């Protein structure tokens, strides 16, 4: 089988069956074999109602329901386990990009790439959302040194091996192209036409921003330092230690050459604080290193493309 389409159903809406029918049409006209896996993530009985509307397509559709709400990554992994296609098309529960765009993306993958990340053009969601999305993407692009412009698009098309070889958990689904590129998979960004947006608009809850920020940091750490935590923490610790030593030096110069007293000034206290902080950061890194060294031995540092 060529395509396995994994639909992550999170927020139930009336047009869902229409979306699935449309997906079916897109792939049916392509002529390749395909299956649609619907992963209903804590939507109660919604899926069962919808399935009655989709009866004509039963042969191509598999539906799964999670009892309780779980993360997107779990849904995706579960979908992967049940799928039999070579190529995975992951998407949200509504039509985010046009039918033509789907075809463009699929063609791009066939032309030689492991994962396709769509870049929505002509966006139809409110300007404020676009603005937020732009800030998020620019920040990620700068910090993680990628050239992807639109991680927030729910559609991701990739070869099965990409998900098998990358460790995606929690809310990391949107970062899949970055993690995959880091593992050596060929990532391509393709411009496509935005069709519809159903997500929340306006300001999100404060916790959403915090979670997103933590996610970015997690990815940053995971892609750069997970195998060598000592590097990360010791660079932080060394910086702090140097600041502390510099302040100490300055205070003593003042004391011995200018005659200013040391004892009851906060400067030296600050210096001690920085030194202690530096040692603590470095020692945490060392502990991290001990953990990866002694526990993570079975984890491979590399990804193998071929063996002969």
């Amino acid at each position, binding site marked *: 089988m060529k395509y396995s389409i994994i639909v992550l159903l999170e927020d139930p809406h009336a047009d869902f069956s229409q979306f699935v029918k449309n997906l079916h049409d897109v792939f049916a006209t392509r002529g390749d074999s395909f299956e649609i896996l619907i992963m209903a993530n804590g939507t109660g009985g919604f899926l069962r109602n919808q399935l009655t509307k989709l009866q004509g397509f039963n042969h191509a559709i598999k539906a799964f329901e999670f009892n309780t709400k779980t993360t997107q990554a779990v849904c995706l992994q579960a979908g992967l386990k049940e799928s039999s296609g070579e190529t995975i098309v992951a998407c949200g529960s509504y039509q985010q990009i046009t039918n033509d765009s789907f075809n463009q993306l699929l063609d791009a993958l066939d032309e030689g790439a492991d994962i396709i990340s769509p870049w929505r053009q002509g966006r139809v969601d409110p300007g404020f959302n676009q603005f937020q999305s732009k800030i998020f993407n620019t920040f990620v692009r700068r910090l993680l040194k990628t050239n992807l412009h639109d991680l927030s698009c729910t559609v991701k098309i990739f070869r099965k091996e990409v998900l098998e070889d990358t460790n995606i958990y929690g809310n990391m689904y949107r970062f899949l192209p970055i993690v995959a590129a880091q593992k050596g998979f060929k990532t391509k960004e393709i411009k496509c036409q935005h069709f519809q947006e159903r997500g929340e608009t306006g300001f999100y809850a404060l916790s959403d921003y915090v979670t997103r920020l933590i996610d970015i940091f997690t990815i940053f750490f995971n892609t750069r330092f997970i195998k060598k935590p000592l590097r990360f923490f010791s660079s932080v610790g060394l910086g702090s230690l140097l600041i502390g030593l510099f302040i100490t030096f300055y205070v003593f110069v003042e004391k011995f050459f200018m005659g200013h007293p040391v004892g009851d000034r906060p400067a030296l206290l600050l210096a001690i604080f920085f030194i202690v902080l530096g040692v603590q950061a470095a020692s945490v890194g060392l*502990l991290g290193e001990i953990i990866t060294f*002694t*526990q993570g*031995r079975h984890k491979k540092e*590399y990804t193998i*493309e071929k063996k002969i």
Partner: protein
Amino acid sequence: MNLTNPQPIYLSIVVPLYNEEESVEKLLLGLLEVGRQFEFAYEIILVDDGSTDRTWDNIERLKKTTLQLRAIKFRRNYGQTSAMVAGFDYAKGEIIVTMDGDLQNDPSDIPMLLGKIEEGYDIVSGWRKDRKDHVLKVLPSRVANAIISSTTHVRLHDYGCSMKAYRAECVKSLKAYGEMHRFFPALASMTGARVTEVPVKHHSRKYGVSKYGFERILKVLSDIFAMNLIIRFSSNPLKGFVLCAVPFLLLTLFFGGLTLLALILQWTVGKAIFFMLSTALTGMAVVHLLALGVVGELVVSTSDLSHTRMPEITKKCIITNGEEQVAKRKVRGA
């Protein structure tokens, strides 16, 4: 080699390759030439470390005509050490020989390395006694060697030489990355492996470009530093952290004493507060380090890593005089 009745493979030659399209064929011919003298079955494992040139195509082409050849292709460049580890993992032989893919090592040295292994050593490291490299490459390497030699228990002249022979069980479970292949002897000797070195031939580079530079020196040095810390701390974390805590403990006592003095002799209030806060801060560091030491001890004790305390059998039996079998068992730190 008897092809109709294949013997189990005795020797695996692991060669990491990165953008070596010109060298592959020559390298393979050199290895096969040496292989003709062998009376045992062997294999050649080429690891393509994410080359961007035609290295892999050449390997696939050569594979068709060479039965002994096996190969691995990485998705991207992960470095020589990872390539070696992947090769170890894939190897079937009892003995593993590693060498550079840039034709600077000479395959004709392999029988000599094997000879040393048969003498009873577990690891034989090559020593490029007469090195044909630019002085800017040799000098940093000398420094690195001196540091590794003085900080680990294994004393060799040339840790950076890729030409090494190992008993497979010594390296099968190694965990390493970056530039850590230099530490394979040191890591393996933690399990009680016997390490020795032999001078090997060295040729100047014919094809491709050297993958060295100033950045590399920094990387190697920081790896050396990290590796030393890791080796020390992971065999006895609590001890290491306690040692780190000692200076802070002394500072705590010092500031604590001054606090008492300040209170008793009624110095200015500012001084008393300053000393009190200093005592608290340094005391915190002591507690933090001790706590980490305990957690570290916990982590190491639950790990499957046996090298830190378990005696390990590095050799089950050796045959001397062709008949007598001697079982040897070695205990770490003996």
